[in-house]
């Protein structure tokens, strides 16, 4: 099988593009980092790719709300190209600030097709403080997300100030009934985080850490899988190592 081509966006304060590219390369794709201005200048570049990734970072310094200004830039310059891209057999992933961009861009949740209108929000953390910590998440079995397929549980880091997922009642009902939640924060025993800090690190509605599109091809998540690629990235690896050395 030919290796899939992955386009990792950068520019304007995106800052996780290198490790995200490393992760996609390690996972078996050709990953290329492309500046958003180069993409605007030559939007046909998108035609060469099967996977589009909005990495984490602080696009536009989170000014006027996280992910907003970059979503505007995409809308102002690449609306039709994105529409065309998602209509093809492609995958789109937003991590952390990338998830915030997808939500503001109206790519997630995408309940009525892509119209550029946000239907949900990632609000300030309930603690009103940036939180960098490792959490546990469970993967919803019935979620169609391609990215979380065949995974049950993950120990994974979050680092954000605005990760508190919120959607109005009618929207959240649809998200839940269509199984569009792909990840939820849980406690150590596997039970739901129940909005309790630090298990649910931001106060997200229904402990939501990640959602996806109904066809599972677009996924956004607050946790950073690219920061949990290696054993030695874990917060508990020195403890696990001691245990394994003795087994």
């Amino acid at each position, binding site marked *: 099988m030919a290796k899939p081509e992955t386009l990792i966006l*950068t*520019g*304007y*304060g995106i*800052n*996780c593009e*290198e*490790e995200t590219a*490393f*992760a996609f390369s390690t996972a078996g794709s050709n990953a290329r980092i492309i*500046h958003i*201005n180069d993409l605007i*200048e030559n939007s046909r570049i998108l035609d060469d790719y099967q996977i589009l990734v909005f990495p*984490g*970072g*602080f696009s*536009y*310094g*989170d*000014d*006027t709300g996280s992910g*907003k*200004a970059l979503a*505007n*830039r995409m*809308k*102002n*310059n690449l609306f039709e190209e994105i529409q065309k891209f998602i209509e093809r057999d492609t995958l789109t992933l937003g991590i952390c600030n990338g998830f915030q961009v997808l939500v*503001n861009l109206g790519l997630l949740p995408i309940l009525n097709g892509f119209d550029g*209108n*946000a239907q*949900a*929000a990632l609000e*300030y953390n*309930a603690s*009103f*403080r*940036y*939180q*960098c*910590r490792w959490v546990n998440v469970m993967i919803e079995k019935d979620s169609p997300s391609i990215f979380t397929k065949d995974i049950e549980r993950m120990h994974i*880091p979050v*680092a954000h*100030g605005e990760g508190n997922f919120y*959607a*109005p009642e009618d929207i959240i009902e649809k998200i839940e009934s269509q199984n569009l939640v792909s990840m939820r924060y849980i406690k150590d025993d596997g039970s739901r985080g129940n909005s309790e800090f630090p298990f649910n690190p931001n106060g997200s509605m229904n402990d939501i850490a990640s959602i996806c599109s109904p066809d599972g091809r677009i996924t956004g998540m607050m946790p*950073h899988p*690219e*920061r949990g690629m*290696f054993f*030695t*990235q874990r*917060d*508990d690896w*020195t*403890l696990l*190592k*001691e*245990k394994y050395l*003795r087994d």
Partner: protein
Amino acid sequence: MPQPNTAKFRIEVFYKKSDPRGIAVRDKFISLGYSINNVYLADNYLIDIEVDEESIKSAAETLVQPVTQSYYINKPYNPENFDYCIEIGFLPGVTDNISHTVRESLEDFFKNKFDEEKSVFYTTCYFFKGELDKDIISSIGKELYNPLIQRIKIYSKEQYISNNGMGYEIPVVHISENSGVDNVDLNLDDESLQLLGREGIANSDGTRRGPLALDMLSMNVIKEYFNNEEKREPTDIELESIAQTWSEHCKHTIFAAAIDDDTPGGIYKSYIREATARIRKEKGDKDFCVSVFTDNSGGIDFDDDYIISDKVETHNSPSALDPFGGAITGIVGVNRDSIGFGMGAKPVANRFGFCFADPEDEVPVYKNKSEDSKLLSPRRIMEGVVHGVNAGGNTSGIPTPQGFIYFDDKYKGKPLVFVGTIGLMPKKTAGRSSVEKSALPGDNIIIVGGRVGRDGIHGATFSSEALYSGSPATAVQIGDPITQKKLSDAIVKEARDAALYNSITDNGAGGLSCSVAEMAKECGGFVVDLESIPLKYHGLSPWQIWVSESQERMTLSVPDNKKDEFISLMTKRGVEATVIGKFTSSGRGVVNYKGKEIFNLKLDFLHDGLPKRNLFTEKNDSPLKFAAFREPEDHNEVFHKMISRLNVCSFEYISSQYDHEVQGNSVTKPLQGKGRVNSNVSVIRPLLNSLRGVVISQGLYPSYSEIDPYWMAACSIDTAVRNAISAGGSIDHLAILDNFCWCDSNNPFRLWQLKQAAKACYDFAVAYGTPYISGKDSMFNDFKGYDENFNEINISIPPTLLISSIGVMKDITKAVTIDFKIPGDLIYLIGNTGDETGGSEYNAFMGEKEQGEKFTGTNIPKVNAEFSKRVYKAMETAVDERLVASCISIERGGLAVAAAKSAAAGIMGCEIKLACIKDNVIQRNDIILYSESQGRFLVSVNPGNKDKFENIFNDLPCHLLGIIKKESSFIIEGISGKKIINTDIREIDYNYKKKLKKY
């Protein structure tokens, strides 16, 4: 009709549902004792552009999160219930990042360029409901804003309604146009010349432009130079430029001066540089230094192909005035020391160190005799500084894996804010060495990044003086991490590897005047056209443009054949790049403005004309307070109080709000174990496809300084080295950095302390073979002002030396953390414990407890480097053989605190017997528990490895003290066998974490 200075549109954005920021503000004021029911916020964008109402509506929609927010245009938000509205915006000319983003978004939306000076402004409105009156709301306002950078407007609800909201005023910069260049007469009497040097050039109205910080010796040399060599009067821009270049901040005049008759080379050359030279020579082909002292950072080998760079800066004076702005500017500024190292190193980690007064100290201190001149309280300084490094580091995508906080009342006049950046750079880029750089005659001088404003004028000369009431507010800057991130990415990820420039440096202190002149050393001269420099607003005088310290700028030397490609790349990346002149080989620096030559100086004079001073020191045997007290009866109580002290307790709230995982390079974290306890050392993996790691740590002991500055410095070095070893570092590949923050450095006694510390810096760096690669000093951290009764006071910081260590470990999978891991593991104390409680945290505590004032004592720890080096080599072996399950380097608070941290981190109890310390001669349990003797570790070891481990330490002090327990009890038996500490791990966790939790 909008009036001049008002905006055409005012867009107010507010929450439809509850605003989490409002809740946070309300809770904060309730915790400060106010009676507040509710707080609502509105974000306001004042926009003055020529578009119709329909278009502005569409544009406004892009500023709103439609699910949670709503907005009004030219109609005030009117929350149901409020008593007062406070509006806060920036003063004219202050960096306003949000407005910058909004203008860019509007330009993108309308596909049109708008005026950078006056099209978009941002303010925040706070609507308060509670038990309020005019005085109370005014004190709330004071808590919310900083008059040095912000403006405030307070309306009662009635005023708000009758005025139809907060209004349309916009803070456009107005400077009476002064494009002239003045000549300055230096042929003055001594008194006038001295005044000129101290307070600056006189304006026509008699006011002065701000300190040149030039003493009589320098003023006379400058006068002679112009009289004899140039045969004319200097222009103001020439004099300002010389002052910047010769400032203590840039030239380190005290470190460069001859000191006493026995050290003509001075502190820097004789002790710091010489130590490195000797170590490198002794190491021979094992020397790992690549670039020391000459560049923006120091650099050492990472592996065969990469260099790791490091630099630690301070940003103390600005942080005293505007803690947020000072700290963010500091961290973003030191990032440029990495980007400006060699051809450009990618920043891979930040670190910090904050010295504050007790945040609960609310006794006011004043700059002058007026109520309005109150210094910001220690709490506000701490909150602002912590937030500033958060905003700067997180936004830039650089992890902050390591740092410390330290408290002493003597930092009440001036806090210390240490910020450091570690960089990674390939040894070769585009086929040439990345370290060697040289501007060539004929190269274009190009500046990239932010524009020039009045911010930061006289920063270099200001930080060379004590803080006093005339300090210029223009010395305050606010960093703009996104502008810099664009610049940084364009340089270190693209332009560097395309070999588009020959040299690069940072614009920091002294602005262009220093960066251009500094680079011109490489080729021999420069010509600059001042009019070509892009400005934030009109009306700057030529000298101001030249010395302004506006942030996020770098200067590059670009050959003609790469010029277009370079500028086009920068433009594509949203980075402004401007050619401002040429490098030459004329031996002179020349600046032209509007067709006139306004600056023409010999470069030799500018760089080397500064007269060398000879300083003298004087020992002063001030009597020290002995610490005479008995061993306490209740060790449990003392133990819990010790672990909750400011200088020992958890600062998790800082570590967890600083992203330490970005770039995926984290190996061992700032918070370790399930119990999340602050470690004093971290390991990162800057290259994801290599197993090599970088070990970073810090050491400082300001409380030892007044007792003996020599041993203070020795302990700082030993700690920085030992901490690195405890995590898996190797003493054979470990470098250090020195940051001296001193006080009153014209005083011969302070200079004597400095010289003692510097001597130890030489002795112990050489003994450990750990070279200095970079350093910085800040010599006047003094405050002169008034106390709460308006009596004069001087507050000087304790002489503070920060030693930072940076080392390379070959295999990160061998890194060690501090947490106890497996029940049944053996607990060892490595190293010798002496009766060394002088200056200790324990003495401070006992003094406060018994007499309401810290005890110092005299017996501070000493360092036996030859012996400790053997211990450290043995520890390296044990770690290398994977025999160490946990290791903590014992520092402030001694053995008891170290044991508490390892136990709390692992959430595991333990039983420790002091009687198991071999050859113990100390009769008091409290001294064994809290002595801060150097050279020690507390480790836990798999019992299956007992013999192997003990063999490695067979002729070294290795004491098997106890065992890790499955149960949560934490027990320490005294020398007589009695259980003197008998507590529970949950109680330790609670007391260790409670102190700073609320911030």
